[in-house]
């Protein structure tokens, strides 16, 4: 498994980026471009739109880096910009789907661990198919959880949603994914 820069924020050149150093921005963009694109693509399902959103996210990051208070939160801040962009696009297209959410069983959720989700090489495509079949709120939460291993409170910040709702979404997203997965394997 790749070592995430997020887990050791000292390596992120955020202070240098704040001063406008191109090398620092280059390093930051390089670090986040693929995770960000993956997240955006899995939400919007369109390559060009995803690239546009990534570009807009980078531009906004450069413009508003001053507003970032804690350097170690750069990753979640960047994803929150992207998430806002996705929401704007979706609002424009008027395709937003709101699904009724019920309360989660915390005990079940607490036992979950992303490392439990290990996929064999031959099952990768199946796994991606299953992810695609999830609803957008569930998919976005699950992707943030898987791609950057963001914690629940970080995902709540990114999506501007309450922590309880995120916990619920994550629980039901995993449950749905597991059901889809079992169906695929059978």
């Amino acid at each position, binding site marked *: 498994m790749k070592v995430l820069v997020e887990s050791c924020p000292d390596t992120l050149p955020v202070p240098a980026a704040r001063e*406008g150093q191109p090398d620092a921005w280059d390093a930051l963009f390089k670090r986040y471009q693929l995770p960000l694109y993956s997240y955006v693509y899995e939400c919007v399902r369109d390559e060009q739109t995803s690239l546009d959103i990534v570009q807009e996210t980078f531009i906004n990051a450069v413009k508003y880096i*001053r507003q970032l208070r804690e350097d170690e939160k750069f990753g979640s801040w960047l994803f929150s910009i992207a998430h806002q962009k996705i929401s704007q696009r979706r609002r424009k297209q008027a395709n937003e789907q709101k699904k009724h959410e019920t309360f989660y069983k915390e005990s079940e959720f607490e036992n979950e661990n992303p490392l439990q989700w*290990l996929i064999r090489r031959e099952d*990768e495509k199946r796994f991606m198919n299953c992810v695609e079949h999830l609803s957008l709120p569930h998919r976005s939460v699950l992707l943030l959880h898987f791609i950057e291993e963001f914690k629940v409170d970080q995902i709540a910040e990114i999506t501007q949603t309450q922590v309880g709702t995120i916990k619920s979404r994550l629980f039901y997203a995993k449950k749905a994914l597991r059901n889809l997965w079992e169906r695929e394997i059978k």
Partner: protein
Amino acid sequence: MKHPRDVILDQHQHAEPRLNQVRSSVLSRLQTLHHPPNTHLEEKRDSVLAQITVALWRELILPCRRIWISLAAIWMFIAVVNFQMQSPNQAKFSSISINTLSPVIRDQLIRQNKLRASLLNSDITQPEEDEIGHPSAKLRSAIRREWMVG
């Protein structure tokens, strides 16, 4: 075995060259997009100055009665002076009637009126001269020359 993160990222690996293009395009616009931190400092300084001014106003001037009383007194004084200065000639002439004047001034006033009337009458008889040759429209030297020739 792979972690979901790796599976997801691998699925989108093909977009890497286009992402590199996006990155380089944003980096090329970096100078125009980035606001230097100095402006932030200036903004901060301005806001600090504004805060100090507001604090001084609230703490020192606003609650101090003496300042407000003295300001009110100054305004009253200015208003009174301004009222008195306002068109004094008109006020005086409207209040004084001709009978209340002293005899000397009254005589002078009557004399001035007569003089003005005679001058006005002489202006009325002037047109004959005007018809002759509009002397006022010519230079004085030219008029003298005409007179000498005549």
